[in-house]
């Protein structure tokens, strides 16, 4: 069974991620246990692939099973050593601060739900699992992936890395002349983990290398579940998880070898941690969430190109405003805020600098599908119609956007005058911030053809679902009073 190789291939990266998260949580372990493992997998894979990438570039080490193991074990050891140092430093550590996540304990099968409610929940769980299992088994494992980005980018580059045992940036073109492949400008986490899994398996297998996408998809659902559970309890967490699994285009991305669901997991981690930092009760928990947010934000850079240009600046800006607010409200001391800024700066620079230097050194563009340099501005008609169709009239998102709009209107105070503003602001800035690019630049094709616009929404759908679920919770609780 080829999928067995997922276990050795992902164990050390996940362990590295879990340990890194546990260190960053410090004295306030704020995450649920399973949430920590899930986030550990998401961040751990990106972290170890980042280290692998630069280790290969700088040392020329061949990407064999042994070298992967050496790099990953070294990473784990380094993190364990860091853990020891930080543990010794805080030897006075008493009981962990009460986890924000563990305060609300709603258990699905102990609370007084009616038989009908429980039946509906059970049916929706079975239905969602059926969709995910059948579509992922078929599209990821049993059939070849002939989608543009799979054969041009993620899978192709992974196969090149695996075959060549190194980071190779050039490929023969249609004339057979070797040249720098433009898509080498994309961060290599996705292809590199595919190459790593293949190194373990000893061969390139479509089913194996594609199955990682399902894990990223499931991880995002799990992260959304625990995030909502922390704030609103189990029933709303289930509701949010169901909402996310029901979004058709997100399911398509989760069960096909594209990298937008993968990116969405990182974005979700980075911005939701800021939200929880603002809502957490005590400074230790706030700092814990912010340190996790710093690592998540930094690793965003190594996911897809648009993360560095679009998502990271917005996340950093919102984090800065949140820190300012926390300081103003005396929820954090100045010294604590400064430390958090150091954490963010350290992590972001540690990832961004080498990556940017690498890109500049190789003359790579900084846009996503297309370079953003030399943009000429002109009005492109038809954008709003395409956007409206995609958002409201097609089958991509069910009723998610009407629901969000209704909730933003009727719960505007919650959306704009409570810590939920962190999520609201992120969504609105990202969404409306991209619109001028589509309306006035050559990127209008990304909206008219519903390519970049759709994927942009896929990347933030988990945040939309979380915001909608939390606003719903406030609405329902108020109606119950």
């Amino acid at each position, binding site marked *: 069974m080829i999928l067995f190789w997922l276990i050795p291939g992902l164990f050390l990266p996940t362990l590295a991620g879990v340990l890194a998260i546990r260190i960053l949580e410090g004295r306030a372990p704020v995450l649920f246990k399973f949430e920590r493992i899930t986030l550990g997998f998401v961040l751990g894979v990106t972290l170890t692939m980042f280290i692998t990438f630069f280790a290969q570039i700088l040392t020329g080490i061949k990407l064999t099973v042994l070298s992967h193991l050496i790099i990953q074990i070294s990473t784990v050891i380094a993190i364990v050593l860091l853990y020891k140092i930080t543990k010794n430093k805080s030897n006075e550590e008493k009981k962990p601060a009460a986890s924000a996540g563990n305060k609300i304990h709603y258990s699905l099968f102990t609370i007084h739900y009616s038989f009908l409610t429980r039946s509906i929940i059970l049916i929706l769980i079975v*239905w969602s699992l059926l969709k995910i299992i059948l579509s992922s088994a078929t599209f990821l494992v*049993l059939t070849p992936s002939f989608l543009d980005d799979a054969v041009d980018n993620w*899978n192709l580059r992974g196969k090149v890395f695996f075959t060549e045992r190194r980071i190779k940036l050039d490929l*023969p073109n249609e004339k057979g002349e070797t040249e720098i492949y433009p898509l080498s400008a994309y961060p290599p986490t996705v292809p590199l983990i595919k190459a790593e899994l293949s190194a373990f398996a000893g061969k390139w297998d479509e089913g194996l290398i594609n199955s990682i996408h399902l894990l990223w998809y499931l991880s995002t659902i799990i992260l959304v579940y625990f995030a909502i559970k922390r704030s609103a309890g189990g029933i709303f967490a289930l509701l949010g998880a169901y909402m996310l699994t*029901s979004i058709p285009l997100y399911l398509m991305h989760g069960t*096909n070898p594209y990298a937008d669901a993968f990116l969405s997991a990182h974005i979700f981690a980075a911005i939701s941690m800021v939200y929880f930092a603002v809502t957490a009760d005590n400074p230790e928990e706030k700092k814990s969430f912010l340190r996790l947010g710093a690592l998540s934000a930094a690793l965003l850079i190594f996911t897809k190109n648009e993360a560095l240009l679009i998502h990271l600046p917005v996340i950093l800006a919102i984090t800065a405003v949140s820190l300012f607010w926390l300081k103003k409200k005396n929820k954090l001391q100045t010294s604590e805020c400064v430390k958090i800024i150091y954490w963010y700066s350290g992590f972001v620079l540690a990832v961004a600098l080498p990556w940017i230097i690498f890109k500049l050194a190789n003359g790579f563009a900084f846009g996503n599908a297309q370079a953003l340099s030399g943009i000429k501005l002109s009005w492109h008609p038809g954008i709003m119609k395409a956007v409206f169709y*995609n958002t409201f009239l097609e*089958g*991509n998102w069910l009723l998610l956007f009407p629901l969000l709009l209704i909730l933003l209107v009727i719960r505007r105070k919650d959306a704009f005058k409570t810590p939920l503003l962190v999520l609201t602001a992120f969504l609105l800035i990202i969404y409306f911030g991209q619109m001028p690019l589509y309306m006035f630049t050559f990127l209008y094709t990304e909206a008219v053809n519903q390519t970049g616009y759709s994927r942009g929404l896929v990347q933030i759908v988990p945040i939309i679902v979380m915001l909608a679920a939390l606003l719903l919770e406030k609405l329902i609780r108020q109606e119950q009073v």
Partner: protein
Amino acid sequence: MKIENLLLTAVLLAIPFSISAKQSIVWDFTGGKTPPGKWEVRGLEQAVPETGGLAIQTAKDGYMTANTDFGQDIGAVTITLVSTKSMESVLLWKEITSSHSGYRQLPFYIEGSEEEQIISIDLSNAWKWNPRTQEFGIALPSGAEILIKEIRFDGWNVFEKAGNAAKSFWKFDRFTPQSINFLWGPWINFNPVARGDMYMMDPPLGIPGMWIIYASLALLGFALSALTLAGKIGRAKATTIFAGVFAALWLVLDARMGLEILSYAKTDLNEFVFAEEGSRNLRIFRSFPETAQDALPLLSNNSPYFFIGPEGKSLYFSAMRYLSYPAYPVSSGPGFESAKTGLVFANAETGIDENGNLVKSGKIIKADPCEIMKKYRDDSFLVQCSK
């Protein structure tokens, strides 16, 4: 009002609609008949009523029209004909507004065949279609040789339209390369002809089904607001009802879209995974995965190899590069000229001429003596050039 009264009212209201059940108007050209009405033929050199139907032969473009008074809503037209030649033809109807004096046109395609063909064309979504038009006809291109047996106009009553709308809501699209960017979702059409063709177009024929959802929600919201303002129900109850209906519609849409995605999986399983070897097809790529898989051993041993795929579809080249790496394909330049082995996939314009040259659209693209090593389905073959 009691429920019995409500039902009775509904039945009485429905009677006028049910009287106008589906009706067809048939123009029968067989047995040398000419359907009633004033006919006008322009440009067509020969249009002769024969036993088998109206025989038309013309070396020039032309058209024929008849005065019409359908007197009912017409949603589709079905033409029974025989034409050995493939051609694009056009339906014509006269616009009845003062602002437009010419004919409205709706092109359709006739596939050449010795057999009798029945071609159904939706009119309900045609631009500016008006069933009250006073003139309707058909235009044919030069070189047409066609026998028209019958032209039938169909209209559907309100219940049939509602039934077709419901069926079209649950009709699924197929998994295409664009499905990763957007899913059209439910669309609404009101006759079976439009429903059958709806996903063949981009965007689909008809209107987005989401409009029905939004209209339902808007009506409900309006009614609940009115009832709340009138003090008939409380705000909390109104909110609960609205939220309940909203949730129910979400579930309906989830079922609709979830089943569509599962239908993609089912098609893939039936047509590819569990299909017999040699007949496996994957979505629009048809036999490509099976062909590529079979050709790869030879191609990989002769890298670079040349690859000629369907015109304008670079994805096939990308897929070959991915599948065969580290061996790689070439499609132009010196690499193409020197490559000895290659694969032609789904390109009917490419073949080997009598001199052994590889030709594309009649032009020699490789002058070496080439021979077909293996033929595949879908106009595909593996080729070896010896020089």
